[in-house]
């Protein structure tokens, strides 16, 4: 829980806050400063890459999509109005791009993710207790793989709110802005997604 809190704080520090430092970087990029783009990339690529990874469940596909998103962002940068945080705008592009890719590729990505990327992809190490016995650690890794697997079975819309809220720690407002939804819609969709995932994990969660 401490970890999730720290992630949330970090996220909010970047996303919100007056005088978004990203805005200055955006201006510099538009002025032809490539180093500023490198800075933007360094600040945001990890979260976008993780978002993509949780959405598609495969590192290679997540890499490709992340790259495409940042190239798209670079091209679209002149159209960025600084009314919103840069990260929100970035998430919106990433989310739309991801949904389009998932629709384009059908269930291919999601299905491949279920089988090709077990725990050795190091996605869920936080769930592995270092002090646990090898048997326990194996069991925890398997559980992490199951979480990713069940996550991939949800609709992309449900998966997106779970990733943004419970994994990446965005606020409801930020999610609403990124997904272009009403605040109440975000809450109800989040609840349904959690309940659905809970049902799919029931066999693994009951003690």
């Amino acid at each position: 829980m401490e970890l999730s809190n720290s992630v949330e704080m970090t996220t909010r520090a970047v996303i919100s806050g007056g005088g978004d430092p990203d805005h200055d970087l955006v201006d510099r990029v538009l002025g032809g400063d490539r180093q500023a783009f490198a800075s933007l990339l360094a600040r945001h690529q990890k979260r976008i890459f993780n978002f993509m990874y949780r959405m598609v469940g495969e590192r290679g596909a997540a890499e490709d999509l992340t790259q495409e998103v940042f190239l798209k962002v670079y091209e679209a940068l002149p159209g960025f109005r600084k009314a919103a945080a840069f990260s929100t705008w970035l998430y919106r592009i990433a989310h739309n791009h991801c949904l389009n890719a998932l629709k384009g590729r059908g269930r291919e990505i999601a299905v491949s993710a279920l089988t090709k990327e077990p725990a050795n992809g190091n996605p869920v190490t936080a769930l592995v207790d270092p002090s646990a016995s090898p048997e326990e650690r194996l069991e925890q890794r398997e559980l992490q793989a199951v979480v990713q697997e069940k996550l991939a079975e949800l609709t992309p819309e449900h998966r997106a709110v779970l990733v943004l809220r419970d994994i990446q720690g965005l606020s409801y407002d930020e999610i609403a802005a990124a997904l272009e939804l009403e605040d109440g819609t975000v809450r109800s969709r989040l609840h349904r997604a959690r309940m659905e995932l809970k049902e799919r994990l029931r066999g693994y969660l009951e003690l």
Partner: protein
Amino acid sequence: MGCQDVRNQLSAYLEGELEVAPRRAVEDHVRQCVRCQGELVLLQRTIALLRGLDEVEVPPSLSTAIQAGVRPRRGRWWREVASWLFFPIHVKLPIQAVALLLVSLGAVYLYRSAPEFSPQPPVTTESAPRSEAVPSTAAGRADRLDLAARQEAAEKSSGQREAQKERKVPEQEDAAARALRKSAPESAASAKPAEEREALRERDIGARVLRKEAPAGATIAAPLQDVMLETSDPARAIARITEIVSALEGKVEVKEERHLILMIPAKAYSHFLTALKDSGYAVSPPTESPPAPSPEGTVTLSLRLTP
């Protein structure tokens, strides 16, 4: 609060978003309902599992690949050119529209003021002795060189503006001169050798006059405007012309030694030209189309013989 109501509130309850009253209602229900208590625990574990998932490390190559895929902000050359030409649109397009309009107006003005393009009175074009008229719709140079075809076309032709243009184009004049030379042996086949040489010389002179000296607005349409005929032997030329005109039931009035007034029936005008041509003479400017006839149907020419 029933089980379903409570379960609908579980997510908000775990987020701490419920007001005091609904929060207590959920808590009271969960204490008493084992099944809803179990659902709450499962939901807590589900969320904990999600929040416990660690971030995946970004492959080091990703950043490099992205930056390599990004082109310099300046953009491609054609975008820069397009930007330079058209942007901002609200400024540059009106300027370009006005410029285009001005250029168009200038072109129209030039077209109208240039003598090459201005309407001219009818004029004949051909110095070749055999020609009677010029085909106004002659499609190409080859047609112009074909004298037989030209003669046929001349019978149908009524326009004269093309002829005016044709007369002014040196290339076409050259063609006419070549055609003239080409036809010389044929037309002079029956002439005596001395006459033949004279005729050829006069034709060449006619071609040169046609090429270099024909005034832009020259016409024989106006009655009594001088028409030149080059000859080294005025007496013989007068005799031959008189013979031709008489045969055509016209009249010749010798004003001076080298100045004749010819009155020819309009219907016989083309025959006059043909006969003149066959005799090895050419008039300048070339008189292919008959000048305006008088009410009596007579064409009057003021013919000056030049050495």
